[in-house]
Structures are given as C-alpha cells and as structure tokens.
C-alpha cells in the first residue's frame, strides 16, 4: 500500500482505543462515584474565584517577598509554610523543585461581604513564587487549617485573550481588581518604597496602607460596584508618587 496518499495513511493509522487496565478502571470508577459532588462543586467555585483573584498579573517585577522578613513562629505563617511545602512534595505539581521556601508573608487580610479574604505569598531559593489564600472560608481568627486554604506555586497567568500568558515569577504579578462578587483590590506593590496606595475611580477614592514586610495591600471596595477599573497610585512615606497603574476587572 505504498501508493496511498499521506492523508489516507493518516486515516488508516487511527488507533483502536486501548482497553483500560481492568483493575485500575474499576478502582478509579469506584473512586469517582464516591466523590462528594456537592462539596467538590463548592470547592471548585472557591478555586475558580481564587484562581481569578490570583491570576491577574500586572507585569512589573521588582520586589521580592519573604526572603528577609521575620515572623514569630506559630499561627498562620506556620500553616501556610507547611501547606506549601507539603504541596511541593507531591509528585507532578508546580511546587516540584521548590528548593528552600522563604518565610511566607501576609499580603492582605480584610473582610468582604462573604467572609474574610486573606492571601500570603512566599518565594523560594529556586525562584518559585508560591501563595496561599482563603476567600471566605477561614474566619480570620486564630490559625487557619490547611483545608481552609487554597495554595499553589508558579503557574501561568492568563491576563486576557489578546495577551500572551505569562509565567508567575514575581509576587507583584499577583492580585488585581476584581468584581466577580463584592469588588476588591489587592496586590503587592511593584515599588518596595511604597507605604500607601491610593485607589481611585468614579465614586472611589481611598488610601490603603502598604505592608512593610510583603509590600502587600488590599481591601474590599463596596463603593466600586459597577466600576470596571481603578487607578492605583503608589506613594512613599513622604507622599511622593512612585508610580501608578490601572487595574481592570476581568470580565466573565
């Protein structure tokens, strides 16, 4: 059959679907059927919300977080550290190759209409950027459990259909302005000298503190309902403008 066209030969090479390994097939089917779908759906909603809220990068890469900051042991930082390190030990995750995890730092923690939003970020000796967050799950008191956190390392940031995806390589790529529920803004200042950030839009004008340790900031913006974007102006301790950027809420 050497005279067939390539296209015909391609068709002839259509594989017979391989039989699934019977033991694996039955065990996997049973595992799937045991899955608590309602709980999984709720978790998926939280993850999607979390992904959206962590997945909008603003592209500037100046600051490094966590490598020199000092926190007392115990409390959320220990849990976040443990969660990320456990994650990195799992095979075939984006946490593989983590190296030594630097101490996580709180980026922001604030109340929203559906509970407490909190996010931590940590870098590692191999340049990974890892995060942990809780979006309305942890009540903000005491220490969160690992189950109350979403966490991960690195990953691809999908900014929009017309923008090439970016690799998460810097903490200040995290965050943005989000309106999928109560509007909120958070992130890591690209300017380490910033001590405050002014958030402005029609009907919105407030100044948020920038944390010394993580350079993080964040707040719910209930007054921003219907506002598609906000302008962030980063200021130093003397009130000098270090830079501005516009955060546009993702659609959909």
């Amino acid at each position: 059959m050497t005279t067939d066209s390539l296209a015909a030969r391609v068709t002839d090479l259509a594989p017979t679907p391989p039989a699934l390994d019977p033991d694996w097939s039955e065990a996997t089917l049973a595992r799937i059927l045991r899955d608590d779908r309602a709980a999984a759906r709720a978790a998926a909603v939280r993850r999607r919300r979390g992904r959206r809220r962590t997945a909008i990068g603003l592209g500037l890469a100046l600051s490094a977080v966590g490598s020199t900051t000092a926190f007392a042991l115990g409390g959320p930082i220990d849990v976040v550290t443990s969660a990320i390190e456990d994650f990195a030990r799992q095979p075939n995750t984006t946490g593989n190759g983590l190296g030594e995890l630097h101490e996580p730092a709180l980026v922001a923690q604030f109340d929203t209409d559906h509970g407490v939003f909190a996010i931590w970020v940590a870098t590692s000796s191999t340049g990974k950027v890892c995060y942990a967050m809780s979006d309305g799950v942890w009540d903000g008191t005491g220490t969160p459990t690992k189950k109350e956190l979403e966490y991960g390392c690195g990953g691809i940031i999908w900014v929009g259909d017309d923008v090439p995806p970016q690799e998460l390589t810097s903490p200040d790529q995290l965050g943005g302005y989000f309106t999928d529920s109560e509007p909120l803004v958070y992130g890591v200042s690209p300017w380490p000298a910033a001590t405050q950030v002014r958030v402005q839009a029609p009907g919105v004008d407030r100044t948020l503190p920038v944390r010394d340790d993580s350079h993080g900031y964040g707040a719910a913006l209930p007054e921003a309902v219907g506002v598609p974007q906000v302008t962030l102006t980063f200021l130093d301790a003397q009130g000098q403008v270090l830079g501005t950027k516009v955060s546009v809420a993702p659609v959909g």
Partner: protein
Amino acid sequence: MSTPEDADFSEAWRRDGPRVAAYVRRHVAPDDVQDVVAETFMQAWRRWDDVPDPPIGWLIATARKVVGNSRRSARRRTALRDRLELLDRAARPEADAGMLATDRMAALEALAALPDDHREALLLVAWDGLSPDAAADVLGLRPGTFRVRAHRARAALADLDPPTDLRAATPSRPLTEGGLR
C-alpha cells in the same frame, strides 16, 4: 446504593474511557495517561447533569483542557521529536493498518510536522471519530472555521506527499544486500 445516574456514568466510563485514553495518549507521556483520564471523568461526574449526551465530545474537550493544564505535556508538545514519539505510540501499528513501516513513519512524521492546531483538527475527526461539528465544539470553533482548518491540514499533508511515481521509485526497504535503495 447505585442510582440511575451512577449507572449512566459507569456506562460512559466503560464505553468512552478508552476513546478518551486514545486521545490523551497522543498528548502526554504514558505514565500520565491514567491521571488525565481520571481527572477528565472526575470533572464529568461533578457536573454530570450538564454533560451532553452523547458525552464523548465534551469528554475530549475536557481532556484537552486537562492536558493543557499540564505543564509537563506543554513542554513535551514543543519538541518535534517528542510529538513524533507520542504519535508513534498512539497510532495503529503498521501491521494492523496494512502498511509498510516506512509508510507509517512517513505519515506520522508529516503529522508531527503540522502546526498543532491543524494536526488537532485533523485527528479529532480521523482518529477520535468525532463529527466535524463535534470537533469544532471541542476546539471552540465555529463549524465553518473548523472546516477551513481541517482543509488546510489536509492540504498541508498533500503538499508533503511525494508524487506516486516517485514513491514507487523509492522502495522502502533495501533492494540488495549492499543496502542499495
């Protein structure tokens, strides 16, 4: 206790699982196939009420996303040699396909050389057995756009096809003990 939904899903698993696995095999390393298939069906189970009947197009579209989320597979797809290796592993063996090994490899090399989106369009129909409209759904394309893409893929293959008489003059195995070809 088993429900009608359990039974429907179990039937889909046994019927369509191998087809999904066949799709996945040409995109990820053998060690990852089961993980991708399991994740695909887990997602199906969690939204079984919304999964269309028949589910195969939805399942392959979901498997495609699961594969796309795998950074290992993304790396793997970037290398022509790796693409060829995956296709070689996934395709029907030459004996079953009734063709010479060299013809088979020439076809796979041509496939591997196609742009990813062209190859995907071609194989969703030719290998996965989807209708053009179902394949368009998998790729998130309008049917017309899909047909154009599939046509271009076939045209690209035709461009790579040597004339019949040239193939006949280039036997695929040594003609002499000395290796004259």
